[in-house]
């Protein structure tokens, strides 16, 4: 009885997972198929699975445009902005989670409001501001902008995580004469890694793929990959194959980073002990 019930539960799990994985991965599979289709074009009658694959689209993406400078821009901007948003995010989250001060709730709300405003409302004022500062078309500008707009999520996510961690050992450490900074490093950080890995991942994906600010604030020197890719959207239709190839190539860095942090994501949990 118990065994057959366990089996049926497993079957249900397997079914849910299979359906989900097909739905989730098929479009990616199709993206790869589209990129591998020779310039015959993906919109053809008949069986869409039958075609002779070629790397033409990848070649034309890599040879047609020198994507390297855009790639380097994206990489530097993405990594630095992610690092900064994480670094300052951890500090702020600790401040918000472990101190009770006047205006704390207001600060939390204000931080969230930055995330709530549609970016389109920011673009023009920010453009005017950066122009006055003579900072347009520099990687630094995008780094600052991304850091600022990634911080709200980082802070909120990390604040709630820190609050989940039992306070007792921190209080003990404080009584032992450690200052708050030491407590943060020694006691809080070890429990925070998984959440930080998740935030880092989500932040770098957001920074890596951001389009609107990158489009408006750059013109030549600081252009990032997503902006360069849309050049494959011609004025007379879409170069389906090439844009798919470009999208796959662009995704390489986030995929590598995901591989890198993936181990961190689910590690070290459960050792917060019982509250």
């Amino acid at each position: 009885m118990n065994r057959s019930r366990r089996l049926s539960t497993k079957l249900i799990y397997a079914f849910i997972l299979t359906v989900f994985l097909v739905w989730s991965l098929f479009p990616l599979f199709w993206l790869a198929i589209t990129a591998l289709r020779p310039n015959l074009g993906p919109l053809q009658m008949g069986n869409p699975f039958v075609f002779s694959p070629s790397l033409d689209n990848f070649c034309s993406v890599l040879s047609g445009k020198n994507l390297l400078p855009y790639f380097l821009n994206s990489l530097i901007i993405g990594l630095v902005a992610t690092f900064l948003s994480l670094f300052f995010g951890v500090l702020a989250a600790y401040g918000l989670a472990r101190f009770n001060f006047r205006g704390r709730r207001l600060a939390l709300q204000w931080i969230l409001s930055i995330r709530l405003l549609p970016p389109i409302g920011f673009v023009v004022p920010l453009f005017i501001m950066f122009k006055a500062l003579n900072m347009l078309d520099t990687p630094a500008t995008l780094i600052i902008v991304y850091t600022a707009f990634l911080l709200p999520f980082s802070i909120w996510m990390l604040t709630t995580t820190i609050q989940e961690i039992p306070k007792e050992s921190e209080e003990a450490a404080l009584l032992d004469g450690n200052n708050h900074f030491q407590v943060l490093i020694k006691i809080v950080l070890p429990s925070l890694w998984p959440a930080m890995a998740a935030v880092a991942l989500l932040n770098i994906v957001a920074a890596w793929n951001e389009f609107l600010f990158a489009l408006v604030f750059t013109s030549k020197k600081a252009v990032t990959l997503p902006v360069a890719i849309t050049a494959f959207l011609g004025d007379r239709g879409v170069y389906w194959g090439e844009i798919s190839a470009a999208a796959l190539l662009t995704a390489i860095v986030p995929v590598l980073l995901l591989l890198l942090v993936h181990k961190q994501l689910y590690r070290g949990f459960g050792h917060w002990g019982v509250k």
Partner: protein
Amino acid sequence: MKSALQLFLVSVICFLTTVPVWAEDKPFAGTELTILMIAGHDVGLKTRLPEFEQKTGIKVNIITVSMPDLYAKLGTEFATGGNSYDVTEMMWAAAQGYARGGNLYELDQFMTKYHVDTKSYSSVYVDNHMIQFPQKEGSPVICLPHQADLQILAYRADLFENDQYKAEFKKSYGYELAPPASYPEFIDMAKFFTRDLNGDGENDLFGTVVMGKNFPSLVGDITSYIRGMGGNWLDKNNHPVIDSKESIAGIQLYYDLFDKEKVTPKGAATYSWGEEVADFQNGRIAMMQIWPGAVVALEDKQASKVAGKIKYSIVPGKAPTVGGWAVAIPKTAKKPEASFIFMNWLTSEKIALSRAQETGFSTATQALYDDPVMLEKFSYLPAVKASLPYGKGWPQIGEFTSIWQIGAQEISRIFSGELSVEESAKNMQKQLDRLMTDGGYY
């Protein structure tokens, strides 16, 4: 060892003697230009730029973006007085708007200094004073033509010249099957060709195709129909006339092709360029109104099943829409003369023609339409040449992006079944009226 020394001395002498000449010839040596272009419009430049850069000493960086992005960029740029670009591409109507806003450099002094002959450009842009602002005789020149676009009709010669179809058509309709000369003929032929070829009970060949997606491409397509029926967006004095009897007839005609006559694929209500071109490439369409820019895709032997079987003619309503792109210098450009030297080189007959010959990119030089190499390679050119005298531009005002927006929005609502043609026209008239009143046109 000795010969190496000789070689060294000779090269030093050569270098020393060439430097002064070089300096005189290249007053802008060392200048760097940033050019903003639409994606795909930089074809054939990569190989030709080194020569220009060597000759003038000017370094050219070309930045390409997609069309909606270009306006977002230029909008912020001009509004805040940015100076990121030395030359920028734009649509003709946009050039008029930006010039009205005082954002473009007047080119007359350079035109004289560098002896630019405007006769070398596609006549439709020069004759209609589209390169000038205000758009009339004697106004200053503000932009030069880069890419020429004029809507033509692509039709399947293998269908139109098939004896069996010809006989069948004559029997049913009482006249010869030939490229349609009017919209009633167009509808007859579209109905005639809409059929089920493989006998599975579903039509798989359609007379024509329309685009119902809420996108600027819809307005680009329907305008020739509206004007072909005698209507328009605005009249000569910039009063909106989209709810006139004629304009409504044009919109109705476009929608009827989809709804009443059913001579287009069922999905056309959601089509934009990509889907339309794909349908034609797959041989599902008998006639289609296109921009010459799409010809490359239709005639691409690998991608298109009907490549080599297509002929081209003037659109049935004989009011083809003129599109195309101009290049202009922003007022804030740092070295306008260097910018102009580049622009002049880019639009010169020699470069324009050789780029077109190599890539099929329809540059805006009149020589294109008479060049034997071009005529042999690109069968659509005679149709474009025949259409040139009938060509009509967009409303040449800075509000044109809003007109697109309003048009695409309201007409696509007919295709989604939300509005009737009359309601849609009334909506557009109301919004255009407000737009033009705001703009201070009357």
